[in-house]
C-alpha cells in the first residue's frame, strides 16, 4: 500500500508543472490566443526565480530578517511569476496589437528564452554566483495530514503542488461560473459577437494571455525552487510541450487537463520507477528501458487515438480579431 501511495504521490508531483503549463495554455487559448511559448515561459520563470532567490538570500540574511531562506524563496516565486507574465505580455502584444502569426510569435519567444536564459546563466549563475537558499520545505496541512492514505498523498506537499491543486478548481470556477469566464470563452469562440455586446475583445485577450504567462512562469518556478534548487540550461526539458498536449486531451478544460497531466505524471512515475520494477521481477526485467521511457508518449498517442474522440479547439483560437 505504501508503495502505491508513494507511486501516486510521485505522479502528482511530476504532474504539477505539466498541469500548470496546461492551465496557462487553456487561459490564453480560451480567449483565442494560441500559446506554444509555454516551454519558454517556464524556462524563463525557472531562471528568474532562481536568480532572484540566489541574489536576495545573502542580503536578507545580513539584514537579519528571520527565515531569510523562505523570504528569498517567496520573492523568487514572485519574480518567476512576473517573468512569465512579462513574456505573456510580449506574446499578447505581438499576437493582439500587431496581429502576428501566433505560432511564429510563440516560437520566437521559445528561442528567445533558450538564448537569454543560457546567457544569463553563464554570465551570473556559474563561477561567482552566491549561495542559493535551496528548495521549499514540505508543508503538511495540519489535521488533513492525519487522514490515512489520502493525507500523505494530498496534504504533505511543497507549496506549488497545493497551488496547482487549488488553481484547478479556481480556473474551472472562473471559466465556467463567472461573467469574466463567459467573456473569455465568448472572445475565444466568437469575438465579433462578443464585441457587439460590448465586451472589449483585446482587453480580455491581453489579460488572459498575461495571466496564462504568469502561471507558466509558476510552472518554471516549480523546477528551480521546489524541485532542484538550482538552474541548469534548458532544464524545462520539453514539459511545456507536454503541457500543450495535456491541454488538448483535456479539451481545453482545467479538470480535463488536470486528469491528463496526472496520466502523464503516472507515465513519468513508471519511467522513474522502471529500474525498481525491473529488479522486482525477472519478467519485468525483460522489458527494455526505452519502452518505459516511451510510456508518457505512448500514453499520449493511445489517449488521442483511442479515447479522445474529436478535439475541438475554441473556434477563434489563433485568429487575430479585426474590427
Amino acid at each position: 500500500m505504501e508503495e502505491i501511495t508513494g507511486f501516486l504521490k510521485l505522479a502528482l508531483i511530476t504532474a504539477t508543472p505539466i498541469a500548470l503549463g496546461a492551465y496557462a495554455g487553456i487561459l490564453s487559448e480560451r480567449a483565442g490566443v494560441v500559446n506554444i511559448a509555454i516551454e519558454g515561459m517556464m524556462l524563463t520563470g525557472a531562471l528568474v526565480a532562481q536568480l532572484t532567490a540566489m541574489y536576495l538570500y545573502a542580503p536578507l540574511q545580513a539584514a537579519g530578517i528571520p527565515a531569510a531562506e523562505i523570504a528569498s524563496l517567496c520573492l523568487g516565486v514572485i519574480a518567476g511569476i512576473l517573468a512569465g507574465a512579462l513574456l505573456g505580455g510580449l506574446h499578447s502584444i505581438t499576437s493582439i496589437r500587431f496581429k502576428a502569426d501566433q505560432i511564429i510569435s510563440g516560437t520566437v519567444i521559445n528561442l528567445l528564452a533558450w538564448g537569454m536564459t543560457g546567457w544569463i546563466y553563464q554570465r551570473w549563475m556559474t563561477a561567482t554566483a552566491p549561495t542559493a537558499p535551496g528548495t521549499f520545505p514540505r508543508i503538511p496541512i495540519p489535521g488533513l495530514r492525519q487522514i490515512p492514505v489520502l493525507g500523505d498523498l494530498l496534504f504533505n506537499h511543497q507549496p506549488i503542488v497545493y497551488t496547482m491543486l487549488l488553481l484547478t478548481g479556481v480556473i474551472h470556477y472562473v471559466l465556467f461560473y463567472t461573467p469574466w469566464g463567459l467573456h473569455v470563452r465568448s472572445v475565444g469562440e466568437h469575438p465579433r459577437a462578443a464585441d457587439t455586446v460590448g465586451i472589449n475583445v483585446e482587453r480580455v485577450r491581453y489579460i488572459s494571455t498575461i495571466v496564462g504567462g504568469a502561471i507558466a512562469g509558476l510552472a518554471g518556478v516549480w523546477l528551480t525552487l521546489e524541485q532542484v534548487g538550482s538552474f541548469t540550461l534548458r532544464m524545462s526539458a520539453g514539459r511545456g510541450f507536454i503541457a500543450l498536449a495535456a491541454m488538448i486531451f483535456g479539451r481545453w478544460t482545467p479538470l480535463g487537463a488536470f486528469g491528463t497531466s496526472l496520466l502523464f505524471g503516472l507515465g513519468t512515475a513508471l519511467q522513474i520507477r522502471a529500474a525498481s520494477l525491473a529488479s522486482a521481477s525477472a519478467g519485468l526485467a525483460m522489458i527494455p528501458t526505452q519502452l518505459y521511457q516511451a510510456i508518457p508518449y505512448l500514453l499520449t498517442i493511445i489517449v488521442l487515438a483511442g479515447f479522445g474522440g474529436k478535439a475541438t479547439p475554441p473556434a477563434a483560437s489563433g485568429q487575430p480579431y479585426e474590427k
Partner: protein
Amino acid sequence: MTKKIHLISTVLSLPLLALAACTPSTPSASTSPAAEKQSVGVVLDTGGENDKSFNEYTIKGAKAGADAAGLGFAYVASAGSSDYEKNIETQISEGADLIVTVGFLMGDATAAMAKKYPDTKFVIIDYAYAPGAEGVDPYTTELKNVTSLMFAEDQAGYLAGVLAGCVSEAGKVATVSGMEIPPVQRYVQGFQAGAKSVNPSIVTLNQYIPDFNDPATGKSVGQSFISQGADIIFAVGGNTGNGGLLAAKEAGKMGIGVDVDQYLTYPEVKDSLLTSATKNIDVATTNAIQEFAAGQLKPGIELATIASGGVGLAPYHDAESKVSQECKAKVTSAQAAIKADPKITGVK
C-alpha cells in the same frame, strides 16, 4: 551585448595571438639554432574557459604541458559552432603547430581542418573518429595528423563502484544515468562490476534518463532509488545526474560525482559527496603536448587509463574521515588490479 563581449574578448586575445605569432621569431637563446620554438593553439567549445568542466581543464592541461615543454601557448573560445573552423584557421595562421580542440561537437570541424592542413598536428579531447565504410581506420588515411584523447570511463567507474560497494551499509547502490551512450554505459558497467567485486551480493540499480539536462527527473529517480533502500548514488548524467546527487544529499545519503571533481564544481552537495569518478582531462592534455614536443605524438586513439593517470577518483575532501581505512585500502588495491588486468571492469 554578446557582440560587445565577443569584441572585447577578441581584442583581449589579440595580444595573446600576436605573442604566439611572435614566438617563432624570438631567437631561442642557445641549443640547436635550427629548432625554432613550436607553439600550441587551443580552440575551445562554446562553454568558455570557466565552464568547470572540459574546456577549463583542457586549457589548464595545455598550458601546463606547453610551459613544461617550453612551447608557445595561445587559446581562443568559440562564440558559436560556426566559429570552430575559423578559430582553428586563425590559430594555425598565427603560428600554432599543434591544435587542441575539445569535445564531440568539434569533431567535424577538427576533421575538416585536419584534412586542409595536413602539416599541422591536431589533438581532440573525448572524440574518436569511427572507421570508414570499409572498416578503414581514418587515422591511417586522411586523419594521419590527428590524435583522439579518449578515457577509460569503465576504470574510473570501477573504482567508484569498489568504494560504493564497500561504504554502502544497505547493500544497495544506484546509478542515476543520462543518455544511454557509450561513455555513460562504460561508467555504469564499470561501477556495477566494481561494487560486485567487493560485495558479490550487492544490489545495483540503474536508470538511464534520455536527457543530460533534466535535473528534476534525475532527482525523482534518485529519490525513488533511495526509497528502495539504496544508500549510495553515483551520478553519471551531467545535470540530470546532479539531480541524483541532490536527492542523496537531501535524504542524508552519499553521492559520487562524475567527470570532474564535483566537490569543486557542485559545492551545493559537497557535504554528501564521497568522491568523483574523474577523467583527468588536464593530465591527458599535458601528456599529449609533452609527447608532441618530444616528437612522439602518434595519430589514432590514445586511451587514458588508471595506469596512465588519465582517469581515477577525486580526493575524498570532507568525506576523508567518513571513509574507513579498509575501504580506502580496497580502492587502492583495485587500482593495482585494474592496472594488472583492465578487463576486470567487464568492458572490453
